């Protein structure tokens, strides 16, 4: 099976005054294309740092990270923006839409940064996928929380990335809306997308095929896919 993410011996330290905090202390894991994985762990476990490295927002101090065949850990920092644009779709807890842009413009934005020519059509079809074809010209402020998260998901999938990286995607939503968003993720998963959810909500984690549990900067459970599943 094709591995979309391969991580080996990842280390990341933070300096807090004189003390060195080992946020990641030798993390090794792999994620297969088409998988739906949860990364769980208590706060302070290092899962946010792991997510930032997987999302190419920061670089590890040591170790190897291969994303979609690219040895990302060896790329210079200024190339990471292009990697994020091409391979990663972010979904945040707080939606993080740009307030002055309409839903359609928000979804278009990654394509514009990529220099795509058919941005408008692709953004429209992404909004179609998340069921917001009637809300395209609305501003984020005119949308409900669930709708905003749908726009964010449309923005994440519009570039057809290798992985969807969701950070507590239901954290700011009520239970019912949260369930709707989770079933949207399930639909996307059924379409063959690779989804990684960072969460400490057991319900969200249970909705995934596999849970990678982090504690004290190490993977304690679920590092490797269940082969031959």
């Amino acid at each position, binding site marked *: 099976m094709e591995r979309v993410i391969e991580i080996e011996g990842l280390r990341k330290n933070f300096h807090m005054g004189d003390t060195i905090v080992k946020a990641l202390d030798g993390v090794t894991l792999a994620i297969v294309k088409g998988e739906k994985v949860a990364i769980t762990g208590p706060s302070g476990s290092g899962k946010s740092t792991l997510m*930032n490295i997987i*999302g190419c*927002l*920061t670089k590890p101090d040591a170790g190897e990270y291969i994303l979609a065949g690219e040895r990302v850990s060896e790329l210079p920092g*200024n190339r990471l*923006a*292009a990697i*994020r*644009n*091409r391979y990663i779709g*972010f979904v*945040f807890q707080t939606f*993080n*839409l*740009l307030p*002055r*842009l309409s839903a359609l*413009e928000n979804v*278009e*934005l*990654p394509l*514009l*940064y*990529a*220099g795509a*020519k058919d*941005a408008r059509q692709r953004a429209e079809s992404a909004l179609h996928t998340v069921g917001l074809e009637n809300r395209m010209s609305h501003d984020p402020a005119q949308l409900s929380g669930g709708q905003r998260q749908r726009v964010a998901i449309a*923005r994440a999938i519009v*570039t057809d990335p290798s992985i969807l990286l969701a950070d507590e995607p239901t954290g700011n939503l009520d239970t019912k809306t949260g369930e709707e968003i989770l079933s949207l993720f399930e639909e996307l998963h059924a379409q063959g997308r690779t989804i990684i959810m960072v969460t400490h909500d057991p319900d969200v984690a249970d909705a995934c095929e596999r849970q990678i549990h982090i504690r004290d900067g190490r993977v304690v459970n679920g590092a490797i896919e269940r082969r031959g599943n």
Partner: protein
Amino acid sequence: MLFWTTLKLALRSLMANKLRSLLSMLGIIIGVGAVIAMLALGAGAQKQVLDQVTSMGANLMMIMPGQGMRAGVRSGNPQTLTLDDATAILENVEQIHMVSPVVRGNAQFKYYSNNTQSSVMGVSTTYFEIRNFNIDKGRTITSAEIDRRAKVAVLGADTVTELFEDIEPIGQEVKIGGIAFTVVGTLKSKGSMGPFSYDDLAIIPYTTAMNRVLGVDYLDEIDVQIEEGADQETVQADLETLLRKRHKMRQDEDDDFNVRNMAEMVETATSVTQTFTLLLGGVAGISLVVGGIGIMNIMLVTVTERTREIGIRKAIGAKDRDILVQFLLESILLSALGGLAGVGLGVGSALATTAISGFDTVIQPFSVILALSFAVTIGVFFGFYPARRAALLDPIDALSYE
């Protein structure tokens, strides 16, 4: 595509904070407006001076007694020019078209109960042409009148108004310094040059002025018109040689007269107004720079406020350069819009100045282009630091910024 979206976005974010945008543009608006208005004022002053000089007569050369102005004081004996000098100039110096002796004085003018104190110019028949005086009504002075020291006068426009109000002046009798003169002509208005008004005077034959009114035997000035296309410097040198010889001056003695030609006066006037313009323009330029600092200030605030937005953009794939361009574009837009408004302000205030005070202003296209491009340059210059700061933000820090 990305560019237009970015531009649209920049415009939208400026519109979202209208008052703030306007206030931060204010420095640029005032700066650009001031540059344009000041340069228009300077050019207007220059035009006015040039018009005045031309109205004094083309190809005019004036010979004054004394050594000219030294540190602002007229020095030497002022009674050095004679009628014979004037005759000799016309006869001996080449490329001279006309000569007129000039004697000047002040006198009380009286027409029945109307009184005014004005200057009296005793001149020859050629004076009108040399000095570009145009007759409004009646005629100029004739050589016959000069020969017989006739008591005839041509009056300036203001003098006519003052003395006669609505009465037809030609043929009327005016007392100048107690002597009765017949008005034979009136002059078209010419405006003033400094404190001296060319409209408030009486022009009479120099013979009459010297013998009957002022009682002098020297001249206050000799006006010369050189031939069209004649070399001013050669003529001036010839004039000076002739007069020095006639005045029997030693080699090492300074001239006891001084010659002024129009080219010199134009040069002086131009250099004065240019300095003036440069000074005003400089002050206006400083306010432009201050305006730029205002823009930098507001852009720094904007970057801080939109830290999270920058983080989001970076997360979805904006390169550092994309962010740089976005904020740079915003500050350029700010300064360019400010510049355009400033052009409006500058042109408006220049026109208003002319309308209200009558002072000439000439709006120069180059100053508009200069001020606008300077404003945009300032937008780039002062926008660069904040934009770079935005571009170099760490995406994780930016995303978690509250």
